[in-house]
């Protein structure tokens, strides 16, 4: 087997490997170097990760299983020091690897304006996960400000995502209008208006003079003297191919590594692919040509003929609600004519540029449904003189066809490109559908259409609808419920970004279709509001399920169960006596629970205030056995009694319970603290479980022992009890601020990734913020609801009227 070494695990090199293994899994033994400590992920989806619409896990394109299955030797987190072409070896930090064929996929790095202060902490690019995490972190501080330098595709996606995270965002752009390479002025204006409507400040013709700060970025100063406050500065002004290694290896390098149409460099056994490549004077930044290159290189490596050619490109912006499309060339010229359509009220603008009866450019804003049709006219060089009068209205108006929304897709020729990222045309997709791929996931698996950036998902779904007719049921975009079109994550984000602090504000601003929600959305919205605005919003009992409203668990016969707190599972004679008395007085069945407490079952609603009052008198409070909040902290007897106990697990359990009780969370939270690794408190299947060891405390999170059974994953180790408590409190607050209502911690962690959770909780500054916000919330919500209801709401537990003694006439 020949040895193939690939330097750089980016989108292009990942795609090369995919094609290679698909065509001939046994052709090469592959070693993959990556300076980033991880494998291939979909870099163009970092914007949705930044905005929180996707998690890192969702954008990973190749995971460990994939590398394992294909026998790829992964050397991630290791930089390549040099390439010795004479000996045919790649020299990594940890040793040499010989190659028969070598592929450079070193990509590009962000261009950083070399102004004073550009190297201050807090100045980031928007290239990789580290940048994304830095931005997310900065956005966690309330009122944080971001300055984005560069109003191109990347800069605007970053700006929109940071704004969605609630930051105050200013975009600085050197040119007269945004995205000047893709948009003309009119479309640039509409885009600017849309962004400003979302609360993003846009400054054009703004030249950065200097970045200031004491040890960290604080201000951005412009040439005209304007000073902007900034907690983070994002540089998105352009990219620079990474060619240093290739240059040092003696390969032909111009602006980037020079290759021929087979992706071969000046050395016949060395190839290059992606953003580090220069071909016929062109550099490449968008994903579509990179994928084309990958296809060509895979064939070349298998000694098959294939030629790379530069194609026309189209652009879409991945900012929800900013609909723009541009393709081709739209500079003005003597021989060029424009067709323009405007609808100011709807914010629609379309411009077509014609030359010699052929379409050469198209810019659209507000309504981009026909973009792909225009793009195929440009690529094919179709003579449009016959349809010139109605051309701008799109394919639906050609040949008198009806204005059915699907007709535009139906009218596309088979070779029209639907998925620009992966170069998939309509014919391929239709053939796959007819071959049995009847839904989006299987179609993506088979053709890769809409599997990268996803902006063509709508078109692909329309093709499914056109091809399958009534046989296709569009997947519901999982909104919270029928009352709105938004997902839980969107609702949470918008509540923060738009500062919505009441239920009516949410219903109005987020377009609720019902008067005041329903039993599905109201409890969720109520929780989101109280979690984000503990001081401004008041919990609404009418948006709570019965158990949380009545502070007891309703049973199948309409009676309730009452369970007082037993801190850390400890009780005493006095409490037990009061429980026994209450059981007798109210006719309760008595059950010892798995959470180390005692449950009194069969209490009538009318009796609830009375039994609470009796238990309060003995010093007991609600155990919240009914709430989406802290339930129990199960403990073992620890070093107090046990000959194996390493720490005071009971005491830690009690202190944790006293700190956390009363807080509302997205779903219930159960804790366990075991005094030694024998783990008698079964801490390793709790939402948060601590196992004490001689050297301190092992803190695990995301366990489950219900519908799913799952062992906790290690969040951190703490040396002291105070540190352990801090980490737990910060974790709970992070969960409260970010999880979807009714997601237990393990489900939430599966979505956002344990790495992200760790990064937040382990950062001292972020942790301090989380703890401070938790304590603010506890100042409002940590009180005994039983005592409160006994005093203020006792009457509400009795019937309003009793007519059973009156004669019914």
């Amino acid at each position, binding site marked *: 087997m020949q040895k193939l070494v690939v330097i750089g695990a980016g989108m292009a090199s990942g795609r090369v490997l995919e094609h290679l293994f698909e065509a001939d899994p046994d052709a090469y033994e592959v070693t993959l170097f990556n300076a980033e400590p991880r494998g291939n992920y979909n870099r163009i989806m970092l914007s949705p990760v930044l905005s929180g619409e996707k998690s890192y896990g969702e954008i990973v394109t190749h995971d460990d299983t994939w590398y394992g299955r294909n026998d790829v030797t992964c050397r991630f987190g290791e930089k390549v020091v040099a390439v010795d072409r004479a000996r045919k070896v790649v020299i990594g930090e940890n040793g040499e690897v010989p190659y028969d064929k070598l592929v450079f996929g070193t990509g590009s790095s962000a261009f950083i304006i070399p102004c004073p202060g550009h190297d201050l902490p807090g100045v980031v690019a928007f290239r990789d996960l580290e940048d994304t995490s830095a931005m997310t972190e900065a956005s966690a501080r309330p009122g944080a400000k971001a300055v984005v330098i560069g109003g191109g595709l990347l800069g605007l996606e970053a700006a929109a995502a940071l704004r969605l995270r609630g930051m105050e965002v200013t975009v600085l752009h050197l040119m007269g209008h945004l995205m000047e390479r893709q948009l003309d002025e009119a479309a640039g204006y509409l885009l600017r208006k849309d962004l400003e409507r979302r609360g993003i400040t846009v400054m054009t013709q703004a030249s950065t003079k200097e970045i200031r700060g004491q040890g960290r970025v604080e201000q951005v100063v412009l040439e005209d003297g304007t000073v902007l406050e900034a907690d983070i500065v994002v540089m998105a002004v352009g990219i620079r191919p990474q060619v240093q290694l290739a240059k040092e290896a003696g390969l032909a390098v111009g602006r980037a590594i020079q290759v021929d149409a087979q992706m071969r460099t000046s050395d016949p056994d060395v190839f290059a692919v992606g953003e580090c490549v220069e071909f016929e004077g062109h550099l490449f930044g968008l994903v579509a040509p990179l994928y084309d290159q990958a296809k060509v290189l895979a064939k070349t490596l298998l000694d098959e003929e294939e030629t790379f050619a530069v194609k026309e490109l189209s652009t879409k912006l991945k900012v929800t609600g900013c609909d723009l499309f541009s393709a081709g060339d739209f500079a003005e010229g003597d021989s060029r004519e424009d067709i323009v359509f405007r609808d100011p009220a709807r914010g629609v603008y379309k411009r077509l540029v014609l030359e010699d009866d052929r379409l050469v450019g198209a810019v659209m804003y507000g309504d981009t449904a026909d973009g792909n049709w225009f793009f195929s006219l440009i690529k094919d060089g179709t003579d449009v003189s016959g349809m010139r009068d109605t051309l701008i209205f799109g394919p639906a108006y050609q040949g008198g066809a009806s204005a059915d929304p699907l007709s535009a897709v139906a009218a596309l020729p088979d070779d029209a490109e639907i998925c620009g990222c992966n170069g998939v045309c309509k014919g391929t997709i239709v053939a796959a559908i007819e071959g049995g791929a009847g839904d989006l996931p299987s179609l993506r698996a088979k053709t890769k259409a809409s599997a990268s950036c996803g902006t063509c998902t709508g078109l692909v779904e329309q093709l499914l609808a056109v091809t399958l007719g009534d046989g296709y049921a569009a997947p519901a975009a999982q909104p919270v419920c029928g009352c709105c079109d938004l997902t839980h994550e969107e609702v949470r984000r918008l509540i923060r970004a738009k500062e919505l602090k009441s239920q009516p504000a949410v219903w109005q601003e987020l377009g609720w279709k019902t008067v005041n929600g329903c039993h599905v959305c109201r409890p969720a919205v109520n929780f989101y509001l109280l979690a984000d605005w503990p001081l401004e919003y008041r919990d609404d009992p009418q948006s709570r*399920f019965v158990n949380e409203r*009545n502070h007891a668990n309703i049973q199948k016969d309409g009676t309730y169960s009452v369970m007082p707190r037993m801190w850390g599972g400890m009780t005493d004679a006095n409490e037990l006596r009061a429980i026994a008395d209450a059981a007798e007085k109210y006719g309760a069945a008595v059950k010892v629970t798995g959470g180390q407490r005692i449950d009194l079952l069969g209490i009538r609603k009318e009796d609830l205030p009375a039994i609470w009052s009796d238990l309060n008198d003995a010093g007991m409070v609600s155990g919240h056995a009914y709430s989406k909040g802290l339930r129990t902290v199960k403990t073992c007897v620890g070093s107090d009694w046990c000959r194996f106990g390493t720490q005071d697990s009971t005491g830690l359990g009690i202190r944790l319970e006293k700190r956390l009780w009363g807080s509302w969370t997205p779903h219930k939270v159960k804790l366990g603290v075991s005094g030694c690794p024998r783990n008698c408190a079964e801490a390793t299947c709790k939402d948060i479980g601590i196992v004490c060891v001689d050297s301190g405390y092992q803190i695990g999170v995301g366990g489950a022992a219900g519908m799913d059974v799952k062992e906790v994953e290690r969040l951190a180790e703490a040396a002291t009890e105070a540190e352990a408590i801090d980490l737990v409190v910060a974790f709970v607050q992070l969960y409260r601020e970010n999880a979807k209502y009714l997601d237990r911690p393990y489900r939430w962690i599966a979505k956002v990734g344990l790495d992200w959770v760790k990064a937040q909780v382990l950062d001292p500054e972020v942790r301090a913020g989380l703890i401070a916000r938790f304590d603010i919330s506890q100042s409002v919500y940590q009180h005994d609801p039983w005592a409160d209801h006994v005093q203020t709401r006792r009457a509400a537990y009795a019937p309003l009227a009793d*007519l*059973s003694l009156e004669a019914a006439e």
Partner: protein
Amino acid sequence: MSWIDIGALEDVPLRGTRLVKTKLGCIGLFRTGEAEVFAASNTCPHKGGPLNEGIVHGRRVTCPLHNMVFDLETGAAQGADEGRIETFPVRIEAGRILLDVTALARSAA
């Protein structure tokens, strides 16, 4: 018609409920608006859930046990579920809630 004063409007919280006991079983009072109250049988025909413990939304209530939703104007179960709860005439006068007990007698007959 025979209206009986059963309590003050303000004793029923907005989008909240209260219970009225009668010889013929419990009646739920559902306050759907500032000055709008409905009265209906409190027992869900599905598994007997107490509807006064449900969440009130629009002019509907969701049973707390298994999420069956009832229209309080007609008593009809919503969506795919079948079933009906009896509704009773109720009105508000000078901040007091009045229930028509003739309807109760009739339903007994």
